[in-house]
């Protein structure tokens, strides 16, 4: 155990120096991306905001079912199959069929090539499930159909969220999917997420619809409140143009009326429809509806064929800017709810870094002094190893650009405390060996060999805990698992290569010395 070949010594030296260099690279700036690796600071250390958003898919499902009833009705009408009394109840579509038609309806839903009910061969499942309950049939989304629907609304939502966050212009936001109905937004350096929160809280569903007094409007009507919450108006359900027709939206100052407005440009389809509607609807009130509330309902005075227009509604410059931003980035497929928020101000982050570093320095000093007093020359070896170990640990974290959190720093300090364990196990064993072994080299050899299983056992148990923590933990706690886990490997390396190298050099030079340890 004490013999080292020249090649191995070279390898150990190079390896240690390499990681020390990588660890120190955190202090410098490199132009080259390859060299410019840094340990990332977690949000709890650099300050920032962590938001977990959940997509409320209920309205999406409701809407899809609504569309489906129309599709189903038309589909069977074309096939001359009579279905009636079609209605939606509690996320199920119910309809009645006659005895003669029942089988052909069931067949349509169970046909793998049906265009009414898409089949996913990979999951061996249809989009919709049909349940035979006599002459009244029940149709709803299958498990797989729901998953598809959720992932697709998640895909759309994450895109919109990304656009909105980018528009606000925070540095390096991190936007990730979580499960199939959640989105994680990490905003480093942002200490007041108020604006982003309010932007993400809006669906931004914009429609232009005529105000009507005709309760029997062909498309149906609904009563909507104005933004100020006081007045109400009856609005047709017929949509003239919607947010999808917008090409651009910008806040502007209307110098004539001395108010802030949002001016918008429409795409070709939108411009055509807007032009037609404004030409036939002169004198009528056109309601601009955002997320079910009327922003304003100006009276149409002229045909607007240019494809551009403006929205006024008593905006401040800030609200106009935000509305324009929302309109530019598009509507969310479904409302988002912020179900978890954690925000740390930058100066608390800095305080945490300082406290963590002080604790690390003090913990490190205490351990080093203790070990030196206890083991003298071998204590010195352990301590040098401990320092190299710390650098290698930092080096590995840098190499993988791991995220360092406050509990992560605690993990490093803990690693320092526990890393001496392996060396202590070895040295104590050597002491025992020396009791009945006069040959120093044999005693050291024995010490290393016989302590190996205990060291391995001890480290595997800690590693198991770290692995579970890594997979189950979130955010800051994950950082703890990372440093603790990586620390185990660097500790084993430094104990079995670096410390053993120093030990072997010292022991072979003092072969005949008594009371070596």
């Amino acid at each position, binding site marked *: 155990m004490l013999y080292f070949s020249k090649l191995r010594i070279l390898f150990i030296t190079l390896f240690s120096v390499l990681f020390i260099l990588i660890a120190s690279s955190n202090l410098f700036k490199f132009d080259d991306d390859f060299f410019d690796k840094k340990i990332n600071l977690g949000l*709890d250390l650099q300050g920032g905001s962590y938001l*977990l958003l*959940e997509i409320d898919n209920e309205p999406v499902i409701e809407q899809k079912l609504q569309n489906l009833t129309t599709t189903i009705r038309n589909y069977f009408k074309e096939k001359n199959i009579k279905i009636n009394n079609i209605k939606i109840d509690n996320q199920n579509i119910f309809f009645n069929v006659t005895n003669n038609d029942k089988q052909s309806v069931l067949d349509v839903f169970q046909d793998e090539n049906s265009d009414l009910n898409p089949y996913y061969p990979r999951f061996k499942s249809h989009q919709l499930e049909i349940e035979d309950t006599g002459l009244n049939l029940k149709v709803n989304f299958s498990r797989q159909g729901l998953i598809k629907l959720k992932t697709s609304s998640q895909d759309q939502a994450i895109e919109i969220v990304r656009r909105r966050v980018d528009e606000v212009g925070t540095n390096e936001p991190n936007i990730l999917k979580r499960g199939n109905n959640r989105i994680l937004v990490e905003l480093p350096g942002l200490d007041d997420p*108020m604006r982003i929160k*309010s932007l993400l809280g809006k669906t931004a569903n914009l429609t232009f619809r005529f105000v009507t007094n005709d309760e029997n409007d062909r498309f149906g009507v609904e009563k909507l409140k104005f933004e100020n919450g006081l007045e109400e108006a009856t609005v047709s359900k017929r949509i003239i143009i919607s947010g999808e027709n917008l090409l651009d939206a910008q806040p502007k100052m209307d110098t004539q009326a001395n108010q802030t407005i949002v001016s918008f440009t429409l795409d070709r389809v939108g411009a055509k429809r807007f032009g037609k509607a404004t030409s036939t609807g002169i004198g009528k009130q056109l309601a601009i509806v955002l997320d079910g509330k009327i922003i304003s309902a100006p009276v149409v005075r002229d045909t607007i064929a240019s494809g551009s227009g403006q929205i006024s509604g008593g905006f401040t410059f800030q609200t106009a800017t935000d509305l324009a931003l929302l309109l530019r980035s598009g509507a969310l497929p479904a409302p988002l*709810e*912020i*179900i*978890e*928020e*954690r*925000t740390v*101000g930058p*100066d*608390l982050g800095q305080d*945490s870094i300082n*406290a*963590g570093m*002080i*604790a690390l320095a*003090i*913990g490190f000093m*205490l*351990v080093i002094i*203790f*070990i030196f007093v206890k083991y003298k020359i071998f204590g010195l070896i352990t301590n040098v190893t401990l320092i190299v170990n710390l650098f290698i640990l930092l080096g590995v974290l840098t190499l993988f650009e791991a995220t360092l959190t*406050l*509990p992560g*720093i*605690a993990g490093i*300090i*803990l690693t320092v*405390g*526990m890393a*001496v*364990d392996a060396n*202590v*196990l070895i040295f*104590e064993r050597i002491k025992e060996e020396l009791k009945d072994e006069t040959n120093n080299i044999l005693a050291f050899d024995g010490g290393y060999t016989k302590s190996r*299983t*205990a060291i391995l*056992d*001890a480290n*595997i*148990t*800690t590693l*198991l*805990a*770290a692995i*579970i*923590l890594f997979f*189950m*933990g*979130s*955010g*800051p*706690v994950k950082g*703890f*698992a990372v440093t*603790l886990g990586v620390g185990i490997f660097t500790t084993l390396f430094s104990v079995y290569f670096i410390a053993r190298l120093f030990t072997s050099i010292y022991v072979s030079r003092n072969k005949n010395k008594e009371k070596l340890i």
Partner: protein
Amino acid sequence: MIAFNKYYNHFNLLSSILIVVSLLLLIFKGLNFGIDFKGGTLIELRASDSKINVSSLRDRFNQMDLGDVSVKKFGNDTDFLVKFENKDNKKNIIEEIKINLDKSFGNNYDLRRVENVGPKVSAELLKSGVIAISLSLALMLIYIWIRFEWQFSLGAILALFHDVIVTLGVFSLFSLEINLSIIAAVLTIVGYSMNDTVVIFDRVRENLRKYSDIKIFELTNISINETLSRTIITSATTLLALLAIYFFGGEILKGFSLAMILGVVFGTYSSIYIANTVLVRLRVSQKTVLREDEKK
């Protein structure tokens, strides 16, 4: 040589009492769950005006109709921790609070940390915390089952349960807050306690093979003594590191490091006085080990 075995019975009794008391505490007093597991809002606030203190903050927050509000000093005289349930899960709660605080205190305060955990998320976090701890106990069980004879496994697991239960018992007794980092601490305690037990067990097994004529009662004592200086040095350095975190690592790490400190103390104690006494009570002998050796 210290006669640890002279006190096996005494300390077994003590541990039993500790476990029973801890369980009673956990059942009847329960744990003080933080917002991570209970849901709610937490605000860390730093004041730059001496007018802002616990009572003025409490008055202000109580007027806002937020349910149960707790206001505490956090570390020093200018930092405060405010927690409330946010029962109705109001959306713009922070904005509302800021407006209200501005009215009373102007610009003389700073929100340093805001955490808001919805009821769904807190339930999930609690569930995954419980799963994580159970999973780690199960993994340890499997590992020790593979490595040692069943008597040893039982000893190690009992020691492990003891450490986790008594640590949580202390947290219950003093109403210390259980949050995500405490789960991390408990998992690390599990690892540490196992580590400590395994080192002594390794030695017990080695000695069982070596001596056929020494009774397990004596043999455990010999093994404990042989590994004693390692036990002391490792616990000492680990405790030194943890004490450094506790005293200098800032308020946020206080609970975490305290849990670990308790865990290390209990872990060291239980390796000696629980794990080993199980071997004695199960009358482990050389045969136990040799039988297992033959199988392999």
